[in-house]
């Protein structure tokens, strides 16, 4: 949904945006977007992989195998996958603490992610970062951030470097609804717009900043309309419909690549609590159930694919089982990996 359409809706349009049942004509949509059968199935598979990673992380934590905390993105897979496939693989990524899905979608090595999650030396950060600070510089993923909103202004610098070096990659910077209320959000939007930097900002609005409902935290919704204050185009879309995400990000990325920064807000939902300490006291079981049953991004995409005749139940289960196997292999790798040697503690304090 573009600005124009959104502006016409009553209230702030969020109900309207989420009212779609996802049963549109997939064949027509895929053709329009130039996505092949194979590409669609790969997107489906990646969404299943992310979901399994998050469920496995939860199980590992329950089994007492995780030392620290984690922020799981189950329910938000369509944003990660739709975005990653819409932009180029060499585009840069800056993301937030709930970042597992973004990394998997961008092609990070799941074994190294799992090893980092378990604090192993083989992990992406040699066990120094954990779930919250995974980074894969080899795929231009510049690292997840544990300080809410802190990555938003890093995108100014990455965008500026790309502009100064006359390169044609863009930087995709993803943050949450909570981060949009940090001061640096405004500083950074002003500066990317001022300097015409190749930045695609994505506000992954999963309705809660920890326990704070976005409606209690934000004076005017949608969040994305704040972009107007900086003369930036903006979109507010159904973040649980992977093809809507894909289509919007494709358009937004093209604009960013020509030096027109964009802000896209994706409406989505997280199934697990904020982190391991969350008892879900701030939202109802009915609400969670409603999102899981009626707006689940994987179920919706699966139904679309089946309706189009590009998938059947059996093949879907097979893909899902294969995705789980990838995760199980990653766990086996991580568990067999040694911990970092305490004698290496001071390594990496200084370069």
């Amino acid at each position, binding site marked *: 949904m573009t600005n124009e359409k959104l502006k016409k809706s009553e209230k702030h349009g969020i109900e309207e945006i989420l009212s779609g049942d996802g049963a549109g004509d997939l064949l027509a949509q895929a053709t329009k977007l130039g996505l092949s059968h194979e590409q669609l199935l790969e997107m489906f598979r990646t969404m299943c992989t992310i979901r399994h990673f998050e469920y496995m992380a939860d199980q590992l934590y329950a089994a007492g195998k995780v030392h620290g905390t984690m922020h799981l993105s189950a329910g938000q897979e369509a944003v990660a996958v739709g975005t990653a496939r819409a932009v180029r693989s060499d585009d840069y990524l800056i993301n937030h603490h709930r970042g597992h899905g973004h990394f998997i979608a961008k092609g990070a090595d799941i074994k190294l992610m799992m090893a980092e999650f378990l604090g192993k030396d083989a992990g992406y950060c040699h066990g120094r970062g954990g779930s919250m600070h995974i980074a894969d510089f080899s795929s231009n993923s510049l690292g997840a951030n544990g300080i809410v909103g802190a990555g938003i202004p890093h995108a100014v610098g990455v965008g*500026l470097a790309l502009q100064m070096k006359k390169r044609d990659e863009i930087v995709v910077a993803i943050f949450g609804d909570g981060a949009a209320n940090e001061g640096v959000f405004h500083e950074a939007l002003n500066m990317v717009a001022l300097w015409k930097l190749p930045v695609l900002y994505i506000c992954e609005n999963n309705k809660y900043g920890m326990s704070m409902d976005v409606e209690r935290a934000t004076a005017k919704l949608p969040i994305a309309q704040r972009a107007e204050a900086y003369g930036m185009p903006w979109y507010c879309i159904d973040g649980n419909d992977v093809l809507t995400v894909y289509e919007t990000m494709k358009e937004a990325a093209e604009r960013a690549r020509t030096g027109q920064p964009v802000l896209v807000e994706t409406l989505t939902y997280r199934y697990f609590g904020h982190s391991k300490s969350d008892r879900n006291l701030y939202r109802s079981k009915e609400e969670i159930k409603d999102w899981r049953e009626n707006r689940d991004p994987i179920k919706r995409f699966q139904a679309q694919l089946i309706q189009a005749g590009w998938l059947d139940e059996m093949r879907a289960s097979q893909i899902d089982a294969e995705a789980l196997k990838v995760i199980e292999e990653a766990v086996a790798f991580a568990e067999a990996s040694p911990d970092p040697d305490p004698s290496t503690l001071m390594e990496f304090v200084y370069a």
Partner: protein
Amino acid sequence: MPEITYLEAIRQGLWEEMKRDENVFLIGEDIGRYGGAFGVTHGMLDEFGPERIRETPISEATIVATAIGASLLGMRPVAEIMFMDFVFLALDQLVNQAAKMHFMFGGRTNVPIVVRTPGGSGTGAAAQHSQSLESMFMHFPGLKVVNPSTPYDAKGLLITSMRDPNPVVFIEHKQLYKTKGEVPEGEYAIPFGVAEIKRPGKDLTVVANNVMVPRSLAVAERLALEGIDVEVIDPRTLLPLDTETIINSVIKTGRLLVIHEACQTGGWAGEVIATVTGSRAFDYLDAPVRRLAGKDTPIPYNRELERSAVPQEEDIEQEIRAILAGKY
């Protein structure tokens, strides 16, 4: 060797390094036509253009964040924070981000940025434009803290800062900007973690930074007329700190006085004193180790109040005489 000011030495360091390395660029408020609040970057806009003399809105956090982001792609940004007091606005970026990224990402990236910022009192700028915050930065592993006291050191240490692979906080002092000294043209780099004995002596060791160095030297010269021989050491970089030079000096003199403008409580003098008294120098001490620091107060506006908030030459002289006389 040409004699230039501390301010000109910094400009020369920036200028020459920008000529040598196209990845170096400056970012900050009013650094273009205005030339920076103190004039450090005066003339650089015309030479290097607005892309590399990147003027920003008043957004300190994003100035530092922009430097960080650009450095991740191989740039070598030098950010200017107009007054050291404003660094608090950017502290998350400097401490939670720049200082930690190399570590928490397992050494897979690094953040080669320099954040230049002038600190210190003496200009009647009152409580929010006069602080000395170097001690705070020493508490953050991953940062380097540089604090030159002479034009020569300013240029040489700045060049090292711009070539270091880590985030560097480069602290200038407003009262030193106009001081003059010999500075060679062309590049020379002063290594970090190497203190300089600015004046050798045998009776007492003074360790001092930035504006306290010339003040201590002036006192030492006066006392020398009476046969009192004070050694003055400038650590030049506080992180890393050259403890060996200080320990060896105390072994020689048997007496230590640490002087800084920063507030006493939690100030870096305590760090130096703990290091010395915990070292082999302890057995050589002939007197209690002492510190002379800024009073634990915000910097006031009134000229005399401001003066009395930080060590002056007469305070330094009095303290040295007291130590030597055994009056503690």
